[in-house]
């Protein structure tokens, strides 16, 4: 990593999700020098954990494949994984940035042959599947993972597993002595695209995510639907592994709520509408979806998707913020209590499975941002002159769907280019 070349005409992009990749690739394809850092072992971010996109119901990995090809082909773009930004100082056109790279314990010799994973015994919760399944202590983060290179979980270092892995590798790709590295470099502009995390469902106490097995989150549901996900594409109840056919979707789970996130996370309505189509796809008329909502926010052109779902007689909409969920001890069914406010109808309805349309919490380190930027009380980075040449992209800027995140990231790339072009101009 010592060979990173960066100047004050270089653009640093922080975060390798869809927004960061877009900002980096778009800028690089304009001929700019770009460094893209990602704290995970592979790029792709949240979208790589999605089964389908709304409203087209197409597969995120398809776009990811294209972006990966663009990334592989572009010589202006340098990718650093397992790397985070620890310090930033300076001003537009001349920032000094300190990067911290965690040891992967696997070097570029790795051919992704998988021999190490075969011999390692230790298993850990799979990050890719939100802990719904296990993965080995030596692993490839996912099938689309780029760099296509294995990782050793730090928790196996110093254990016999680590030595076994090393011995299993014919290509001397495993380096157990790898240490954390730190590098300081100069860049002209910074695009901040650290994305979002699902709001901690345990905090939404009335819904008992921590107490009731058959209450799950929308991101977990999404993994379940993936044919190569933890349940092989089946909707299985955590409590008893039975197929769930009567499914409740609770909107604004953590969003639009002063007790949790006060902003609207924008994507959840469309996400749940999309997920009702999964239920239909699985069971046809046998399945049943109930959406408990405050307002259905199927914004602009894609409102027609909402209209299509409304026409599906297996899907019902209840205008209600569910008050609380209790578990039916016999059946393990979550029972939803509340009032449908359209005409005041009280309900206590059992479902096989409850999906919390979980809110979007920005992953902006609001408190300890490495340099002064203006962050609003929702935790997103405000567009502000005072931020200098630090530009938020995607869900660091607002709760955005993929399409808008990419749009926003493309804009941020230009803002960064303006800065480095100015540097280039003034420096002849």
């Amino acid at each position: 990593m010592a060979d990173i070349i960066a100047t004050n005409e270089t653009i640093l992009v922080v975060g390798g999700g869809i927004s960061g990749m877009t900002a980096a690739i778009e800028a690089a394809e304009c001929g700019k020098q770009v460094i893209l850092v990602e704290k995970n072992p592979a790029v792709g971010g949240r979208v790589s954990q999605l089964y389908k996109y709304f409203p087209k119901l197409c597969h995120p990995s398809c776009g990811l494949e294209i972006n990966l090809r663009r990334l592989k082909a572009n010589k202006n773009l340098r990718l650093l994984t397992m790397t985070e930004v620890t310090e930033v100082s300076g001003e537009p056109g001349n920032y000094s940035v300190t990067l911290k790279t965690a040891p992967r314990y696997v070097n570029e010799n790795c051919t992704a042959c998988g021999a190490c994973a075969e011999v390692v015994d230790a298993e850990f919760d799979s990050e890719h599947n939100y802990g719904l399944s296990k993965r080995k202590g030596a692993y490839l983060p996912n099938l689309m993972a780029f760099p296509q290179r294995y990782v050793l979980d730090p928790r196996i270092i110093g254990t016999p597993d680590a030595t076994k892995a090393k011995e299993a590798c014919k290509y001397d790709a495993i380096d157990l002595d790898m240490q954390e590295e730190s590098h300081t470099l100069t860049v002209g502009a910074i695009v901040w695209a650290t994305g979002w995390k699902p709001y901690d469902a345990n905090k939404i106490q009335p819904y008992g995510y921590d107490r009731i097995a058959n209450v799950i989150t929308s991101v977990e549901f999404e993994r379940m639907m993936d044919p190569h996900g933890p349940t092989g594409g089946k909707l299985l109840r955590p409590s008893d592994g039975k197929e769930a056919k009567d499914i409740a979707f609770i909107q604004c789970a953590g969003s639009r709520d002063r007790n949790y996130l006060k902003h609207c996370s924008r994507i959840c309505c469309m996400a749940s509408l999309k997920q009702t189509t999964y239920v239909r796809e699985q069971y046809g008329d046998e399945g049943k979806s109930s959406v408990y909502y405050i307002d259905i926010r199927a914004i602009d052109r894609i409102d027609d998707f909402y209209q299509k779902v409304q026409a599906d007689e297996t899907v019902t909409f209840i205008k209600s913020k569910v008050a609380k969920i209790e578990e039916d001890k016999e059946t393990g069914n979550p029972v939803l209590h509340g009032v449908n406010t359209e005409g005041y109808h009280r309900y206590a309805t059992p479902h096989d499975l409850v999906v919390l349309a979980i809110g979007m919490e920005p992953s902006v380190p609001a408190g300890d941002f490495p340099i002064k930027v203006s962050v609003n009380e929702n935790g997103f980075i405000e567009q502000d002159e005072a931020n200098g040449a630090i530009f938020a992209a995607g869900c660091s800027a607002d709760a955005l769907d993929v399409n808008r995140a990419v749009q926003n990231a493309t804009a941020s790339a230009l803002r960064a280019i303006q800065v480095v072009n100015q540097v280039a101009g003034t420096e002849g």
Partner: protein
Amino acid sequence: MSTVNQVMVEKYRNDFLKEVKANVEEGDWVQMCMQCGVCSGSCPFGPYWEHPPQEIFMMIRAGKRDEVLTSDSMWMCTSCYNCIARCPRELPITHIMHGLAHYADRLGLAPKNQPTRKFAIKFWNNLAKKGRVNELKLGLALYFMNGFVEGIKTALKNQKLGLNMVKTKRMNVMEMVGGHSVKDTGGLHAILKKAREIEEAKAAEFKG
């Protein structure tokens, strides 16, 4: 009391929301409701509300003054605070319900024989007199609040209860004479009188 009602009707014409904002405890919050209904679903007495809180808020906006103020729904509040704890907009719903009940009572619109209303009034009068609650008098008053015959029935029904309480020294027959009290009853009454004056004055001078 109903003259007060006339005054308010005059003052706010048909703008009930403004009236509530001006005269009802925490009434300003009503406009912040987004009709999610979590309060209505959270109330332990929910099934007994003819109009649950969120609907009452909507009725206030819709100017349904009489329907709201004569309703006995607010009187169903057990002060469990579930609604406040869960409201996504932080509305102090319990207090708004109390405020509406009190306001309705002040205007003489509250349903006359609503049991909780009667109890609440008696409770207040009881404590306002000596500064501390006289549980026995309150209890008896309660039994007879629906008239003598009813009272005997209730009293008999609760006789065993009463005896138990006495046996376990958790009720004192001597309270009929004397009983607990603050020493400075004069001061206490002065405070309450003044507080009431201030409140009345505010309601009167507020220009919708």
